[in-house]
Structure formats: C-alpha cells, structure tokens
C-alpha cells in the first residue's frame, strides 16, 4: 500500500512571495501514529519553509532510519529527499553539500539515529561545520523498533515495559555546544510558536545549525514516569527566551510578556530577535549557554529556545576553500588536464 496525500487546494490559502501556498510545501500522507510528536515537527518545517519563501527544489532533505527519519517523506514533496542508512545521514549530507554548495540542506534524525549508532557522524559533522540544519526528533526511545530506551532517555525514567533506565543520558544540545556547533537550539514539538522561528533561523544560519526537539512518542514513551511524555515536558519546560526570526532586516516587533529583548544579527544581515526571560541570558556566550543547559538539567528542566549562536560561522567550504561554483557544475574542460599535460607527466616518469 502506498500513501500519497490527495491534492485539493483551498482557494483562500495565502500565497508567499514566490506565489506558493503552504500546501505546496507538504509531503505525502504521514504513516506515523496519530499524535506522534514527529508529525508536529513536520508541520513546523512546512510552515517555516513556506514563510521563508524557500524554493523547494533548492532544498535537499536527508535522514537516517527511524520513525523520525521517515518524516522527510511527509514534507516538501517538491524537494529531493534521501532516506539513507541508520545513523549515517551526516556523511551523506556532507557529500551532497560538497557537490553543490548552492542548495539548502535539511537533515532529520532521531535520538537513536544520532545519539547511539550515529554518534560518531554527528560529532564529526559538527566538527566540520557543515552548512546544514540538523533536527533531532528526540523521543527518548527507539520508536520504530518498538520502544527500547535510547541514549537520551533520562536516568530513572520508565519505559513502556515499566523498566527503569539505569544509565546517564546524553544531552545532545550541550554536546553540540561543546563540540563547537555555531547554532544550537532546543524546543518542543508541541510548541509551534517557538519551533517555527527556530527552524527558520537555523535554515538561515551559514554553518551547522542544530535543533534538539523533544518529541513525545505517543505509543512507546508517553507514559507516566517518562521525562519525554507530553505531560512531563509541559510541566518542566523552561524557555531561555522567546525567539522570533526576522528575515532580511524586515523589522517585526512582537513583544512577548514583559521580558527584555535582544537582536542577533545573522551573517546575511537577517535578525533573530530574542526575548530574554532569564536576566543573564546571552546567546552569543558559549560558556553561559553551557552552564544554563547544565543547570536546567540538574533541576530536571528542559531549557528551550536558542541556546547559542555564533552569527559569523564559517562552513566547510570556507575552511577547505572550495570554488564558489558548485562542484557538480564544473565541466570536463575545467576538470581534465588533457593529453598534452599527460605527456608531460609521462616524461617526468621516465
């Protein structure tokens, strides 16, 4: 059985700058469980791409294996997608990006896909500063293989089978900051108001942008005692700041609550507006971001928002000085030294 979303257009839907309505950014019908957090994130991605006026064919979406990694089929059907192998999406994204630096690369992974089998590739893609957005749909369990604990499951949390996780959990956001990721955010699948601007800002970031999204698995990890259930997250969420993405300097002034706000100018001149909740919050300060994440964890809180950003990020292409033109557009004339040169090489080998 195949699942293709039936196409019907609502004439009243608003068009974005490119003339596309939001449904143009949708994908095939999701086959995930009803209520799965991952579907909410897909909806957020669709919304963000629509609002950012992304040309879908100028974006490539990549993933590993897992329920989470299936989602690229459920958004942006006009983008090329690549559902690779378990834990190895970062390497495929790296190769793709090296071949064509002009596209936007959007990676989706799960906590199993990233924090266990794919930990090596996750660490190294950060180290290389690949220009991509990397979203982990983090449900603290292996959804697709039916609910085993993952490495992000909190110590002491109970899984569906009633077993308590005995091991320390891996905190992906602080790890990413530690490893030098230049954009690290955390959010909750149920908080679209926060998630959409974060995704937009991540896609606009000129280096590696990581978003760890807590995404409850309704089937295997929404039980009492799980720290990644809807109820737990709603009760224990702590936001760093409310974030609003303002592309290309178009000032939108939305004030949330009574917090102060701070503008962060991105590399390309666009602005992320942060509404500070914590008095000492400075997303440009790596050290305090680290501290805040660690402190929140100690209090069993999930700190959400933009934790850290370095707007002057350099990506892999800058570092290894690849040509500004995408490598996949270079022709034989530009790439092949030709027979005359080969004769010279031969002569040197005699």
């Amino acid at each position, binding site marked *: 059985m195949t699942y293709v979303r039936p196409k019907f257009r609502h004439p009243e839907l608003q068009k974005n700058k490119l003339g596309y309505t939001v449904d143009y950014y949708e994908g095939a019908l999701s086959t995930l469980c009803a209520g799965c957090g991952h579907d909410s994130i897909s909806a957020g991605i669709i919304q963000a791409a629509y609002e950012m006026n992304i040309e879908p064919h100028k974006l490539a979406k990549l993933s590993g294996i897992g329920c989470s990694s299936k989602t690229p089929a459920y958004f942006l059907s006009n983008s090329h997608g690549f559902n690779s192998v378990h834990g190895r999406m970062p390497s495929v994204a790296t190769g793709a990006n090296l071949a064509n630096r002009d596209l936007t690369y959007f990676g989706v992974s799960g906590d199993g896909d990233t924090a266990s089998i794919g930990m090596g590739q996750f660490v*190294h893609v950060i180290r290389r500063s690949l220009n991509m957005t990397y979203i982990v749909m983090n449900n603290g369990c292996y959804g697709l293989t039916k609910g085993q604990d993952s490495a992000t499951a909190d110590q002491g949390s109970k899984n569906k089978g009633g077993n308590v996780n005995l091991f320390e959990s891996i905190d992906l956001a602080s790890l990413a900051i530690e490893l030098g990721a230049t954009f690290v955010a955390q959010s909750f699948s149920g908080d679209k108001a926060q998630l959409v601007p974060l995704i937009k800002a991540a896609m606009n970031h000129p280096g590696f942008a990581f978003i760890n999204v807590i995404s409850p698995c309704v089937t295997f990890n929404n039980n009492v005692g799980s720290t990644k259930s809807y109820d737990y997250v709603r009760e224990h969420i702590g936001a760093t700041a409310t974030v609003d993405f303002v592309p290309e300097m178009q000032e939108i002034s939305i004030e949330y609550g009574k917090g102060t706000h701070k503008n962060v100018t991105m590399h390309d001149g666009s602005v992320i507006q942060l509404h500070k909740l914590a008095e000492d919050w400075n997303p440009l300060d790596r050290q305090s971001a680290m501290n805040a994440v660690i402190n929140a964890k100690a209090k069993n809180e999930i700190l959400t928002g933009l934790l850290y950003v370095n707007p002057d990020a350099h990506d892999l292409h800058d570092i290894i000085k690849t040509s500004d033109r995408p*490598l996949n557009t270079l022709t034989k004339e*530009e790439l092949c030294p030709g027979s005359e040169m080969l004769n010279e090489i031969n002569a040197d080998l005699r």
Partner: protein
Amino acid sequence: MAGKTDKINDFVVRFANVNGTGSASANFLFTKAIFRMGVPVTPKNIFPSNIQGLPTWYEVRVSEKGYLGRREGIDLLVSVNPQSMLNDIKSVRTGGYFLYDSSKKLHAEYIREDINYIGVPLMQMCNEAYTDARQRQLFKNIIYVGALATLLDIEFNVLEDLLSEQFKGKEKLIPANVKALKLGVDYIHANYKYPLEFRVERRDLLKDKIMIEGNSACGLGAVYAGATVAAWYPITPSTSVVEAFMDYSAEFRVDKITGKNNFAIVQAEDELSAIGMVIGASWNGARSFTATSGPGVSLMNEFLGLAYFAEIPTVLVDVQRTGPSTGMPTRTQQSDIMEAAYASHGDTKHVLLFPSTPKECFESMLDAFDLAEGLQTPVIVMTDLDLGMNDHVSPPLTFDDSREYKRGKVLDAAALEKIEKFGRYLDIDKDGITYRTLPGTHPSKGSFFTRGTSRDEYATYTEDSAAYQHNMDRLIRKWDTAKNMVPAPQVYQKKNESKNGILFFGTSQYAAEEAMDILKEEKIVVDAIRLKSFPFNKDVEYFINSHDTVFVIEQNRDAQMKSLLMIELGVDPKKLISVLNYDGMPITADNILNQVKVNLRSSSKSLMSKN
C-alpha cells in the same frame, strides 16, 4: 665480451634495510638507473607494518626478456641490516653474492662456503668522509649504490643525472651525494674483481615506457575522470591513491584567478563516513570516489547495499592486502573478491574492474566513473598492494581528448518539461537502467525520495510483493546490460590451440605470461585469458566452455575467483583447477609452472589409464 656463464640483464638483487633509514631513495636510484639504461626492471617493497626500526627489503628483478613478475632466487644480497643478516645470508642462491658492511668482521657462523662475500666498510667510510650523524647514516646507502654500479656495470653518468634531477632546486646537496657514489665505486675498483658475471648492459627495450606506482596512476586517473569529491580514511596500502589525487588536484585544479579549489577532499572519521560522503556527492551529481583496503570494504558493506538498491553511482578503489582481519597489512593478496562482488546483505552484486598495470589503473578510473554513472551502481576498482605501492614499468598513460565523460541517464530541466509524470524507476529503455534527476533541477518536476526501502517505479514506498520483485528483476536486467559495458577480457589467441587454458587477472598477469612463455619453450601449449572485469561477459563463458581444463590463477587461499566463475557461469567445478598463491608475496612464474605441471601430468596420466 660476455663469458659462458655470464648473465646479461637477468638477475635479482635484494636489499636488506632498516625501516626509516633513508634507504628507500637510494634503492630507487638504483632501480631508476637500470630503467634509464633501457632495461626492464621490477622493484618490490617488502616492508613491515612499522614506521621505524624493523627490517625492510627491496627486491629488484632485472629481466632482458621483460618479465616484470617476481622471481625466486637471489643473485646478490645487499645487507645493511644486522638484525636480519643471518636469514639474509641463507636467502642467497648457491654461487650468489653477499655484499655487507665490513666495518666489523663477520662472525664465523655467517660464513657460507657456497656463496661469495663482498665486504665494503660502509660505516667506516662514512665516518671518515662525513661529520654529521645524519649524513653518516644516509650516505651509507649511496655508497652501496656506487659499489653496485661498478659491480653491475651501471653507467655512472646515469646515476649522476638522476641525482641532479632529484635535487633540482637543492643543488647544494648534489656534490656530497656524488662523492658518496664515488666512494663506493672506488672501493670496488681497488678491492674486487668487477663487473660480476651477471650485470646490466644498455638496451633500448623500454622505448616510451614510464615507471609509476599503481596508486599514483589511480589518483591521477580520478583527476582525469573529473572526480571533484574524494572522501577517505587512511589505510595501507590505499592511502597513496588519495594522496596522489590531492597532489595532482593541487597542481591542476586550483583556480588561477580565485585561488579556490575545483575539488574537495575530506578525511572522514571512518570508512562508513567516507563511503557515505561519496554516495551523497554522487547522488548530487558530482563525480566522487574513495579508496580503501579490505577492512574498509568490510565497514562499507551496508552503504554499498544502499548504493546498489537505491541506484547511486559510487566509485571505490580497493587496494587489497593480506587478510583476513588485519592480516599482514603490508603484504599483497587478491582476497577481497567475494567480499567486493557481493558486498552487503540481501541480493546484491557489484561491478568490479581488475587492472593489471599502472596504465590500466589510470584507465580503470576513467571507466569506473563512466560505468558507475552509466549503470547507477557501485563500481569497485580491485587493485592490490603489489600494484598500488610498487613502482612498475608501464606503457605511458594515455588520454583521448575527444573522450567525453559519460554521465549516464540524467534528466535536465528541459527534458523534464517534456515529461508528463517522472518515474525514477521506470525502465523506459528496457535495459534496466532508469532515468535519474539531480536535486535543484526543476521547481516542480523530477523530485523524488531516494531510499533503501522497497519502492515502486515512482519511488514511492511500497511493500507490495509484485512491485518489489519487479524491481529486483529489473536490477538483474541492468546487470545483464552491464556485461556488455564493462571492459572485455584479454584473450591471448585468435583461435583455441589447446584443450587447456589458463585464466588470471590483476597482478598475476606478469607471472602468468612468463609461465606461458616457459611452457611454450617446453612445447606445452595452453590458451590464456585475462579477466578485466566482473560481471563476466560471453567471452569468458566461451573460453571456459571451449576448454577441458582451465587453470584459475589467483592470489588467495580460497579460490575466490574460481567460486565466482562457478556461481555466475554455472561452470562444472571439476573443470576449474586452482593455482593459488597466498603467502603475501607477489606470485611468481615458477610457482605457477609447478602447480600447472603437476596437474597436467596427473591429468594426462588419468587420461592414459582410462584408455
């Protein structure tokens, strides 16, 4: 005048050195001088998996007849390593020579009555001539080259020329080197009879031939093939493939105006990542490759299955070494054949190329990219340590400027415009090869979801049995198409001349051809075929079917190529007789002859007894 027992241009010299003492360049100087004198010469590095301190050997065969395989029997051993001396002395053939550092007297136990000793006080001479400790170490090597030049009649000015080429830009270093050469020359002049009864005589046998390592040729081939993305993880003996690609790219691919690179090379965190990058880049339309050896191929298995099933061009160079496991990492073998042919779980098979010479390494890379993109599948270039890390006399590398890169069936925006509905896996041409699109081509047409899961012809996920099987059958159709696209084997005779044939591939070529010559001299005729690729085409099938017995020569224990022939062509196993070599050293003609003759004798006996 050559005496009766004199052997011109036909001998083996082995150097016994210590790893990391600068012997490599001196030994290469020796080899290159013989090459420059127009005489076929084959050096083999026999080195430990170690950086400094362990024994290492360099064996040079000189062959007027142009035999470039290894040969047993050491005519002259140059000993500069006390550690291995006892065994080195044992390795010299009766009547052969042992050149050693006579700064210290040889122990009685080191004296063999049936060989000749040539003592040159290398250390003592160095200590007298040089003050710097490093120079004393390095010039020991050059002194013995000088001594050998006199003993073997190597032209001194050829050595001088090579030195001045080597130190171009550092001319200051030339006189000290020439001085060391002369020290060696003079010492032999003063103390020994020269030249030896085996020696070099100038010929013009090499014409336009070059001398290059297979790995350099592969790296250069990738540049000529238009590869722009290379990802790799270091492993002997494949590392120098990517290093060569790096060097040649730095030379030819840096934009003169912007200073930016028209290539990207990433040292990955492991081989899984390296092949993942290659797959990602190829999926996105760049020519991309990686190089590794057996352990790396083992790690790449899952990804190779993905590339096979999702149909993504992938070029991989496997420079084979001695397995299993870490095995003998600095010794040669052809033992990854099964692993490469069927890499990954499920029904998978991969296109393999088997180059024999550096020239073919270069061409294999050109072919590998055309085939990988033409067939949208992995192509594995199967070389080995012997070919990759030794200098080989090779025909010059050639490139036809009119050769275009065959990028395969890729639809551009204009082509997509004309299509009602794009189906990534629709077999429109009925050859099993379907049309692909690259990301970013067209705003509303041609996008699809690449996946390792089962899908229908429109790339939509499906678990429908018929659709799955339909796809698997198409992949076999593609495999059949591949048979006519891969390089055809080299068949040595126009018409069969014997009921017996020999079959070989890769670096067994030199030894096999030499063995054939010797058999011919003994009036034993065998037909021959050299495989260049997998899948096997009809020529391979015909060769095997039209002979009673086929000797399958290969360098592994388990007769992997024989298995592959049996599996893929349904050959009667009794027909295929294995000639195997798996001691980690390159195969020799003698070894082949012994195994072939034993079997020929026993089969003729059994024929007679039947009558």
